[in-house]
Structure formats: C-alpha cells, structure tokens
C-alpha cells in the first residue's frame, strides 16, 4: 500500500500510550481490601454501577471487529450486513428478561461463571464442563479477531509492512500492542478494560459523529451514495454469475436476515465475556437500567454500517474487505483525524480482548481446574491460575492470527457463534425451571454442536469450499436460514423429548442447591454476597 502516514501514526501512538498508562493505574481504582480473590480480579469486586457497566458492556459487545466487519459486510454484499442492527436491538429485551435472575442466583451462591450456575442448578459436573468448554472454544477465535482488527488499522497506516518485509518487523507493532494488553490485564484485571472503555467510547462517538456528517457531504449526500452503491452492487459478480448484493433484501434472503438477527441475539449474551460484564454490576437494577441505555450503541453501529455504502460510493477498492473502512478514513479525513479514528479502532480491540481473556480464564479456573484438577484450591490460587490462563489464552489468540490464515479465525468465530448458542437451553432453561433433565440437556447440547459444525463445514462459497457462510437450508421449511438457530431448535427438541423419557424412567435428577427465592434476590438482601460496600459515586 502507500507509505507510512506519520501524522496519523503519531496521533495513534499518543492515544495508545494514554490508555496503557490508564490500564496500569486501573489496579488502584476503587481498590478492595482483598485484591487476591477471583471476584476482585475477575469481576472487579462485583460493584460496578450503571455507568461503568454501560461502558464495560458497550466496550465488550461492540468490538473493534464489529466496527470493521459490519461495514465490511455491507461493502461486500449490501443489505444483508445490516442484520447487526436488529440483532443488537433484540439482545436487550432478552437480557432484561434473563440476566437479572442469573445475577441474583450468582450473588447468592458466589457463582463467577455460567458453568458454576449450571453445576449448582443441575448437580451435573459433565453438563457444567460442556458449558465451560463451549465458552472457551467460542471465545478464543473472538479474541483472535480483535487482533485482526488492530492489524487492519496498522496495515492502512503503512506499518503493517508488505509481503516482502521480514516477518518479525512486519508483526512487531502487533506484538507490542499485544504485550501491553497482556501486561495490564494481568496486573489490573477487569478494572483495566472498564477504565479504558471510557476513552474508547469517547473516541468512537467522536469519529462516528464526524464521519456520518463529513463524508456524506464530501460524497454529495445519501441520495448519491445509495444511487452509486445500488449501481455497484447490481453488477454481476464473475465468481457467482449473480449480482454482488442488494440495497434491500429480496424475499429469498429475508429468512436468512431474520434468523441471523434472532440467532445472534440469543447467542450474544451466552458468551462468557457478556456474562462477566453483567455479573460485575452492583445490582439487578443496574442490569435492567442498562438495557434501556445500551441501545445507543446500536444506533452508532447502524450509522457505522452505512459507512460500508460510503466506501462503495467513494470508489474504495481493496482486496481484503476488512480494510475498506480504515482505507475510507485514510482517503477522506485529514491525517490527524484519521489517526484519531485508527486509535478508536485499535483501542476498541483492546477492551473486549481483555474482557474475553478474563472470562475464558475464569471459566477454566472455576470449572475445569477447580472441579477436575484441584478441588481444594484456595481463592489466592484460583486468582493466580486465572491470571496465568488469561495470558495463555491471549498467546493462543496471537498464534492463531500470526500462524494461520485470517480466514481460519473468521471461520472459527462463525462456528463459535453456532456453538455458544447451544448452551442456551441449559442456562436459560435452568434460570426459569428445574423441569429439564440434566442428561437430556447434555444430549441436546451434543446434537446441536454436531449438527451445527457439520452443516457449517458443508457450506461452500465461491472462494471457500467449507465454512463459506453461516446460512443453509432449514430442514422442513426449505428456506435459507442461520445454521446456529436451526441447531438450537434441534437441541431444544432433543432436550424436551429426552426429559420426558428420562422422567418417565425416573433417572436420577441430581441435587439442586438453589431455591426459588435465590432468583429474585437483590443487593442488600440477606445472603447476597457483596464484597464491597456499593460505591455511591458511580450511580
């Protein structure tokens, strides 16, 4: 590509240095008496108020990858990429309904992960293990994609290096970004991303506000943008012989649009990192209040998605669609502001990567290490193991990005979404009823996992033989729909049928350590764990 953009690079480094300093100082922010407990490192002491939770969840759910990938999808195929907007709208009514119950029961029993809850509710270590392993598997490629997000920005700034550069020089900036991330997550835990999320969101909001006004003016207004984009999308794609995309979904694509939005919404809050951010809030009501203000991010995402059309209209030509938006910024903005935009994306990757690695580490420590390897681990030991695992998870993600083709990470992320959705019946089913049988849930999970993986493997696209997309024909309906949702329906059917059978056979049900009132308990009720006195400043 073009040479190094010095001004943009300088601005980028300034912000990067700023958040690095904040990351390390975060350890002192609202510090608790006992900094060695996993609650403290991994859930920030479970005391975050509405605003901190808002920034944390926002920083967590709307990742750098989302910011790069959603407009990139629109750049490539038009309307179908916009499913991210209904998806992130629908996720909040779901969170409103389900997660306060999870918060309550987790605070009564000291659960740190969803897997802790499943074990306590169903008395089944194997079901808990299935949930934990699914969570870790689904999170790893997600972290890898955050690094891909940083990489795309570095590429456009001209410091990613070309193909001819020595691999070490080429990857050095990414390695540095990664080392910084690893170091402050290790020392500050969940407090670091919570604090950095403030900077990230401020930058992103500024960039979007400017982009959505400035770029359309330069391009002659939305009328022109959509007219040009419509022309470009209706061109025939030589690989498929069909138009490249469309501006509004035609009827064959509407099922895919709706199932993808719905399935992804169900999957999003099953991810360990969304749960981690939710459990770190100070009360049930903090969660509910947040679902009323978090949609602001969806509005931002919608505006961002439109940048995909602007990239088409501006005539941006890139081989790798992920570079479309960074390239648009580089072409449209003055250098210094392009630097601010790149910093927003880069920092936007660090926040979720930190939370995700903490969430995966919590799962490993609580549900694999403590349940299967060392049942008598002390809280100090748990925290130590978690910190080390969070490092290992990130190294794993780095190896993924550097060692393998980027499409591998994207394929796995697609699979991760399908997989994580299969933990829904055990978790949400368990939150509302003890009717399901633990073995039936395990069988349903296995069926969903196998069906989803095999079907996704079989999807071919013009450029890939396998994992070519996340949609396939829905058996029995005949329309094209999201594989994850089909797998989820199968999973739920198996769980229901087998529960009826197993109950008739009087198979042992396992011990439920929770009681109904646990699911509605709030901060301040007897027995609700509160490691810290609720800080009033943040409310």
């Amino acid at each position, binding site marked *: 590509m073009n040479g190094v953009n010095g001004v943009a690079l300088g601005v980028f480094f300034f912000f990067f240095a700023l958040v690095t300093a904040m990351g390390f100082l975060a350890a002192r922010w609202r510090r608790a008496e006992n900094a060695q407990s996993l609650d403290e490192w991994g859930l920030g002491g479970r005391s975050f108020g509405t605003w901190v939770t808002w920034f944390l969840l926002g920083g967590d759910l709307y990742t750098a990858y989302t910011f790069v990938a959603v407009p990139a999808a629109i750049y490539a195929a038009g*309307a179908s990429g*916009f499913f991210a*907007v*209904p998806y992130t*709208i*629908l996720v*909040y*009514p779901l969170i*409103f*309904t389900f997660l306060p119950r999870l918060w309550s029961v987790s605070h009564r029993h000291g659960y740190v992960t969803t897997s802790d809850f499943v074990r306590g509710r169903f008395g089944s270590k194997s079901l808990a293990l299935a949930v934990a392993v699914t969570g870790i598997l689904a999170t790893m490629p997600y972290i890898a994609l955050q690094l891909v997000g940083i990489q795309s920005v570095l590429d456009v700034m001209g410091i990613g290096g070309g193909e001819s550069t020595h691999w070490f020089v080429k990857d050095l900036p990414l390695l540095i970004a990664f080392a910084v991330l690893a170091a402050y997550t290790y020392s500050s835990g969940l407090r670091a991303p919570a604090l950095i999320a403030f900077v990230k969101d401020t930058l992103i909001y500024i960039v979007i506000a400017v982009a959505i006004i400035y770029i359309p003016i330069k391009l002659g*207004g*939305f*009328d*022109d*943008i*959509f007219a040009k984009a419509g022309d470009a999308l209706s061109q025939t794609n030589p690989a498929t012989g069909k138009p490249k995309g469309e*501006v*509004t*979904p*035609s*009827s064959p694509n*509407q*099922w895919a*649009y*709706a199932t993808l*939005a*719905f399935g992804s919404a169900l999957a999003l809050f099953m991810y360990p990192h969304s749960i981690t951010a939710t459990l770190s809030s100070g009360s049930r*009501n903090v969660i*509910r*209040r947040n*679902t*009323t*203000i978090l*949609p*602001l991010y*969806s*509005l931002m995402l*919608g*505006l961002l998605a*439109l940048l995909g059309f602007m990239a088409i209209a501006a005539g941006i030509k890139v081989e790798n669609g992920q570079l479309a938006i960074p390239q648009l910024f580089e072409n449209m903005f003055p250098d210094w502001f392009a630097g601010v935009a790149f910093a927003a994306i880069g920092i936007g990757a660090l926040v979720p990567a930190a939370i995700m690695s903490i969430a995966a580490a919590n799962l490993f420590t609580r549900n694999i290490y403590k349940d299967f390897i060392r049942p008598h681990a002390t809280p100090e030991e748990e925290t130590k193991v978690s910190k080390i695992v969070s490092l290992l998870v990130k190294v794993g993600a780095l190896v993924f990005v550097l060692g393998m083709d980027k499409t591998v990470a994207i394929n796995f992320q697609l699979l991760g979404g399908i997989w994580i959705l299969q933990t829904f019946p055990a978790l949400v089913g368990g939150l509302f009823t*003890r009717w399901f049988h633990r073995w039936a849930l395990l069988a349903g999970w296995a069926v969903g996992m196998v069906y989803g993986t095999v079907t996704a493997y079989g999807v071919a696209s013009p450029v890939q033989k396998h994992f070519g997309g996340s949609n396939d024909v829905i058996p029995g309906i005949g329309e094209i729909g999201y594989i994850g949702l089909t797998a989820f329906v199968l999973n739920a059917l198996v769980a229901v049928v087998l529960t009826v059978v197993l109950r008739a056979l*009087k198979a*042992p*049900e*396992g*011990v*439920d350590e929770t*009681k*109904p*009132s646990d699911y509605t308990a*709030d901060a301040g009720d007897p027995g609700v764990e509160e490691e810290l006195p609720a800080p009033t400043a943040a409310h």
Partner: protein
Amino acid sequence: MPAPPETPETEPRSALPVVTPTRVVVGLCLFVPFVALLWVSSYSRTEPTLIGLPFFYWYQMLWVLLSGALTMVAYKLVRREDARRRGEREDGGR
C-alpha cells in the same frame, strides 16, 4: 441419590400472583420489537426515503429508539411491582 422434592420452595409466597396485568404489559413491551424486526418483508423497501436513506435503513434505526423506550417503560413497571412484592414479603417476615 434421592430425587429432590418437586417444589423446594419453603418461603412464604407473595400474595401477588405470578401473572399480573403489569407483567403482561411488560411482556408485551419486550416482545413487540421481535415482531417488528423479524418480519422483514414488512419493511424491506426503499420508499419513503429520509434524507436520502432508504426506508429499510432508517426504519430499523428508528426501532433502536422505539425499543429503548419500550424497555424503559418495562423497567419502570417492573421496579414498581418489585417494590410492592418486596414490601409485602417484609411485612410478613418481620
């Protein structure tokens, strides 16, 4: 291993039934966005445009705000009813 009793609930039940009019309204507030957004054929068109944006796009972005407002209503209602349930339980318990 003996099976746990069917209803392990031992605490005094709240006088309010599980399904109340408030909860029905809350449920509706939370459900309406699903109908509106998953029924894609109802909004998959270009006209009318808004400042050049096709209907498909501005309609869905409008739902970000509508859905947020509906969730806000649900939140207020739930809080009010939670306070009532809680108040009753405390009167009985203390």
